[in-house]
């Protein structure tokens, strides 16, 4: 379904986008209000919370450009050795910038 872009229809599309996004922000909380929080559910939630980030990062780390992969690798390395998040982030970003510069 395509609609012609007019001032009014554009505003409508933006509001629809906002509502869809809002539904995703509210939906998970709302759905969980029907689920009793048993230990098993708690473990699922706990495992899922780390997994969201891993699932987000995996394609960047594997299929991203070399600079992106280098940045993530550097961050991971510094993080595992020094356990300092800010340092790890800074090193990762600098690694990407340097790679693109040269």
């Amino acid at each position, binding site marked *: 379904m395509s609609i012609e872009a007019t001032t009014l229809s554009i505003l409508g*599309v933006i509001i629809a986008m906002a509502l869809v996004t809002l539904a*995703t*922000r509210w939906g*998970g*909380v709302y759905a969980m*209000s029907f689920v009793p929080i048993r230990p098993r559910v708690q473990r699922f939630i706990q*495992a899922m919370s780390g997994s*969201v980030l891993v699932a987000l990062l*995996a394609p960047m780390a594997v299929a991203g450009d070399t600079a992106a992969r280098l940045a*993530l690798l550097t961050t991971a390395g510094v993080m595992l050795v020094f356990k300092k998040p800010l340092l790890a982030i800074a090193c990762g970003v600098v690694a990407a910038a340097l790679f693109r510069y040269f």
Partner: protein
Amino acid sequence: MAVVGSELYRLNKLLVWQGFKQLAPIGMFVAAFGAAFGLAATQAGLADSTTLTMSMLVFTGTAQFAILDLWGPELPLFTILLTVFAINSRHLLMGATLYPWLRHLPPAQRYGVMLVVSDANWAMAMQTFNRKEPGLGVLLGGGIALWLYWVLGTWLGVYFGNVISNPKAFGIDMVMACFLLALVLDTQKSLSTFITWVVAATASLLAYWYLPENSHVIVGALAGGIAGTMVIDKTPTEESLGEEKNEH
């Protein structure tokens, strides 16, 4: 100690302010991205007011960038909304992971806090909860900070164009990914966590290559969640041994 644990859901002005300050530094980079979006949107033919309204009301970086490709004299409404939904479906999971704490709040607060949920403040809040500290202030305060920077950045990009003409040259596009990765690696590591991550990463990559676009986050996260449930079940830690027996 049990008393401290039960109050982790508390939310007050001080906690919100602390959360705001905690995420303000990363917000600077969000502003840089907002500027990049403002510029890209102008180039894609969006009116200034349209771009700003979108950033204010929708507040979701990745999805906003994605729909610029679909923008034109004819707007494919269904495709636009499907793209927005697919990219943002991870919010559904984030909401679910926050529920154990949010359920203690009255509904207006519970859903009010969720208005500003995004990757960075959610990840930071979960990490705060893992440290047994109250995390909803980070979620709300940090979210407000990120929203302000996103809108401010968009405005700069729209009206001043090339504030940062090429954020990639400075590695700015990698800030958020490195930040999230550092948070992931800052958690307690165990064999069950490792297995969970491997499953999540594998499922995400398979979805990235073989399933419809933008489905990888939700597929990977659900796979990791299911794997974690099974692995943690079978790993005899004191916690699961002690509580499982009572449960059944």
